[in-house]
């Protein structure tokens, strides 16, 4: 297992390097110098040069990359062009919020979709199967910003059931309930498409599994249906679903960009959007890399779960 982990970790390095080089190259290829943008156009040439120097923008591009990379290895993503403070610090302020949102969304997606998917697989062709199928298709086709706006208008503004955004009630003392109250809508929107996808996958995976010979064996042993489905079916059915979880991570990080903006959620997604519009390259790079790392970690976790769940996998 250790060897396996090590091997997987080693393969991660070139992936991350590749991503960082491509992202860096794209930003270098962009027209103009973003750092200059944030400066007063009327300042003196010397002052300008001094600022460029301070930002390390006078070096040749490969040197800039290497400097950037060596910083990253030490956990230093450089200085934000606009905020003039360490990017790492900015990210650390926001990342927990994004992770919390993603975690709750993931749990939500799991809690809803897996039981429904299993039910559908068992009662194929039933009205509920049909209904859930249509619903999960709808979840996949719904633009998430659209859903978010509708939910806010309906549930927050019209009905007043939920806050329109933010992480907690202003000035109120910390309370889990209050936090959850703020979390529900954004997490729901973030989870929607994955919930839908996961339902579909669970359904087809379970249908697949329930048609397997060993399920027939289990039935022939006289096991009650519940045991057959959950003990013999689910464990096998979950194996491919684990991969979907890994795929969910990147879509969730991506979804956070929009969800956080709409729900005023102070996470890295919203920060990314402002950074893009301000062309704050160090921040863009850092968030891109963090998203990549999360993606890769997601894959890694999936592989490990796969290995843990499926005794046939050798590591």
């Amino acid at each position, binding site marked *: 297992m250790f*060897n396996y982990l*090590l*091997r997987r970790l*080693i393969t991660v390095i070139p992936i991350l390097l590749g991503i960082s080089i491509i992202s860096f190259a794209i930003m270098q290829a962009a027209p103009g110098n973003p750092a200059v943008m944030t400066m007063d156009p009327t300042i003196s040439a010397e002052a300008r040069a001094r600022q460029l120097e301070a930002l390390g923008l006078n070096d040749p591009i490969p040197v800039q990359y290497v400097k950037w990379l060596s910083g990253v290895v030490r956990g230093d993503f450089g200085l934000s062009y606009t905020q003039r403070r360490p990017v790492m610090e900015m990210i650390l302020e926001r990342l927990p919020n994004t992770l919390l949102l993603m975690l709750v969304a993931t749990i939500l997606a799991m809690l809803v979709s897996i039981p429904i998917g299993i039910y559908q697989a068992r009662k194929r062709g039933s009205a509920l199967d049909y209904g859930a199928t249509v619903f999960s298709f709808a979840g996949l086709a719904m633009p998430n910003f659209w859903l978010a706006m509708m939910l806010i208008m309906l549930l927050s503004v019209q009905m007043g059931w939920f806050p329109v955004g933010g992480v907690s009630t202003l000035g109120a003392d910390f309370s889990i309930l209050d936090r959850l109250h703020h979390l529900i809508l954004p997490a729901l929107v973030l989870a929607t498409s994955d919930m839908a996808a996961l339902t579909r996958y669970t359904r087809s995976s379970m249908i697949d599994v329930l048609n397997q010979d060993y399920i027939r064996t289990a039935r022939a042993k006289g096991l009650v249906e519940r045991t057959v489905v959950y003990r013999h079916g689910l464990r096998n059915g979950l194996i491919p679903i684990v991969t979907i979880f890994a795929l969910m991570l990147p879509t969730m990080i991506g979804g956070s960009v929009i969800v956080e903006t709409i729900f005023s959620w102070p996470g890295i997604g919203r920060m990314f959007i402002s950074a893009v519009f301000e062309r704050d390259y160090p921040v863009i790079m850092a968030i891109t890399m963090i998203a990549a790392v999360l993606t890769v970690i997601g894959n890694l976790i999936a592989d490990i779960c796969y290995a843990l769940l499926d005794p046939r996998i050798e590591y």
Partner: protein
Amino acid sequence: MSDSMPNNSPLQSFDAQGQAQPLLRVENLKKHFPIYGGLLKRQIGSVKAVDDISFVVRPGETLGLVGESGCGKSSLGRTLIRLYEPSSGKIVFDGHDVSNLPESKLRGFRQQVQMVFQDPYSSLNPRKTIATILSEPFAAQGLYKGKERLERIDHLLQRVGLNPSLKNRYPHEFSGGQRQRIGIARALALNPKLIIADEPVSALDVSIQSQVLNILEDLQDEFKLTYLFIAHDLAVVKHISDRIGVMYLGKMMELAPKRELYSSPKHPYTQALLSAVPKAHPDEVRPDRILLKGDLPSPANPPAGCVFHTRCPKATEQCRQRTPVLQEVANDHWVACHLYGETTSEQ
């Protein structure tokens, strides 16, 4: 060509025995599949699917190959027809060494050696009509055009007992036996000299199996075909073959004319194999079964010495150490076993 051969090689005497030059001569053929693993996905070993096998196929005969699942029968067949690159050794077909011919020069060889496959479901492209499937051999070799090609196809279908009017149908519209016949027709299309049939009847029901076996026999008579017939059903092999080779774990254990093999099997493995066949009639009384202990070892890690020694009821110390060589112990009867005389090869 023959001067490169060692003196004690079975091939030489085969040649001498054979009335004519062998159609196919296989010398020390190996096919090893690499296994990758470890931190850097290096090759960490290999599956010795075919391990140092030599034999000849004489023109017009049927050479049967039996052995348990995974012993390398298919690998051997596919290597012979150059679907797999041989790891080492020589394949001499009709006097020409084809073992190292590059893909581009294989065209002529491909016309003369064809293959019939095991699975009637996956051996025909499900998205093509029978007519298309049967025209592919001609297309690939650039033979016949237009109407003539269609006539050939009709003829081929008739040869294997199918109504030519069915040629515009798709494989899924046919039963297993019919598909297998289509596969045979495809192999016949180029008028090959040698057909390698890899378990052509294993997937078929008993009552269908005999249809296909009969057709194969009829075609052999008609076209003077030579067969290399791979199967694991001993009765079927015996029915169709002239000589039979028994394989175990990538090696040839015994090779003899069929009657000889069935009446006096020499190798302990052959003996066990034959005794394992269920009796044909409830009243039949037979000496006790020779039950082999244990399981087939992995071809990635075959036992040292004689590969069979781990399961052989008659294994001795010497079997554990030295690899026996295939040698002639009776007229045209070859065995690789230390029980039959001294051998010289040291591992």
